[in-house]
């Protein structure tokens, strides 16, 4: 019976997130416009200036658009994951987060379910983006769309957990702008989403090293390899370990006796 309680709760949390998402079509369009602008405008403009050498997982020379597509799928996960988790700040101020946290289940389980729910929403958006990219003739092997599924889930969970950890000590929604400037943008630009590591190494070894250790880079590489039917073991374990670390920190942050909730005035 207890197991059924857990399953029903997760089912409800995921279902609610999907329902909310369906009611917010503007959010869906906005989440898609961002990567599409990068793909159709930015990548087209930079195509001639940024030549990409043959690097794994690619077996031939590719256009810049093809290179940045996995990075832009990662961008959807990054923005959406962070936004969903940070909307918990709003939910907490408005109260609906309280309803979740007073449910008679362990807090780590409730937070993990919430994370899973927001990852499913990101996943939908990422697949729609990959579909549009396919129509734009960025066409990885068909099997890649299957392989990329677990990669997108793992990457989405990791980025969502990071957002959740941040949300546990952000007091007000206004601080989201700070998160954009200090977390999302540096993570995105200092990653392999837009340029390969060797390109970055040519201009700055320090930046290349930072990009290498950036969890978002590893998430993007995991997606990139999976999309081309390959498994990047290093990126997988790096993303998995980062997910666990952020999840533990987020649960700690939301633990009333240990984390940041303790010091917050409600």
């Amino acid at each position, binding site marked *: *019976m*207890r197991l*059924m*309680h857990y399953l*029903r*709760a997760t*089912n*409800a*949390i995921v*279902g*609610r997130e999907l*329902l*909310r998402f369906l*009611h*917010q079509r503007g959010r869906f369009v906005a989440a898609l416009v961002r990567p599409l602008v990068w793909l159709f405008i930015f990548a087209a403009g930079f195509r001639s200036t940024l030549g990409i050498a043959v690097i794994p997982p690619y077996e031939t020379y590719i256009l810049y658009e093809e290179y940045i597509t996995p990075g832009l799928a990662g961008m959807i996960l990054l923005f959406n994951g962070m936004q969903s988790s940070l909307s918990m700040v709003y939910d907490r*101020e*408005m*109260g*609906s987060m*309280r*309803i*979740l*946290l*007073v*449910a*008679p*289940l*362990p807090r780590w389980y409730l937070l993990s379910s919430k994370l899973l729910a927001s990852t499913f929403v990101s996943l939908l958006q990422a697949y729609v983006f990959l579909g549009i990219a396919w129509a734009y003739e960025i066409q990885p092997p068909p099997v890649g769309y299957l392989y990329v599924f677990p990669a997108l889930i793992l990457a989405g969970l990791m980025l969502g957990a990071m957002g959740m950890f941040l949300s546990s000590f952000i007091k007000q929604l206004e601080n989201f702008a700070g998160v954009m400037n200090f977390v999302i943008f540096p993570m995105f630009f200092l990653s392999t989403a837009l340029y390969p590591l060797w390109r970055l190494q040519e201009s700055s070894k320090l930046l290349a090293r930072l990009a290498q250790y950036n969890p978002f880079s590893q998430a993007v590489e995991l997606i990139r390899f999976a999309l081309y039917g390959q498994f990047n073991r290093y990126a997988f374990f790096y993303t998995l370990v980062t997910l666990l670390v952020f999840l533990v920190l987020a649960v700690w942050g939301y*633990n*009333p*006796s240990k984390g940041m*909730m*303790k*010091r917050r*005035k*409600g």
Partner: protein
Amino acid sequence: MTSFALEVECVSFAYGKKKALDDVSFTVKPGQCTILLGPNGAGKSTLFALITRLYDSPTGQIRIAGFDNRKQPCKALADLGVVFQQPTLDLDLTVAQNLKYHAALHGMSRRQAKRRIEEELERLEMPDYRTSKIRSLSGGYRRRVEIARALLHQPKLLLLDEPTVGLDIPSRQALVAYVHQLAWKQGIGVLWATHLIDEIEPSDELIVLHQGTIRARGIVNEVIEQVSVTTIGEAFQVLTEEATCA
């Protein structure tokens, strides 16, 4: 088996150096409506956050239907229904969708949830509102839905944190009457936080909280006698004024 819906024993809490609650102790019996009366900033919401485990209470003990909310949080929270001060319904979802979500969080099956939702909506005289979006409901009806939600899993303790905020006078009166009836008929222990004295019934147990400490406790008439005044309004004024001057 405990005979109390809620037991709060020697609970203190501070935000940094600022004390919000100081050695607070009281009980709520099943079938009894207990009013937690205090001005804004008295510590009512902090106390609610501690009872619901949104905050941790490092000192003292809080037991819900006999379960310590630190040692057995899941069992304690299973017997608790809460109506928070802030609205907590999803405006874009329907009444039934909001209620089903809560039912699932409490582990109820679809069939159980459907039956309980129908029962509660019937009791609140709003069976036709199942498919109405929350956004389309008035403030009074939204509060009713929140109460229905808090009662879905048949808790032994119902917490209401200033539930009449933003309601017009008839809606307030109806809500006060409904919750009192609920306590008597269903045997639920109710803890109702408010700063409005007209929400108190003569038979209520009253706790006057001010600046984090309990200033008076007892049935309404007992509190009036303790302060040697004639009305509860005067008693409240004296109790909160004295404390401020002290």
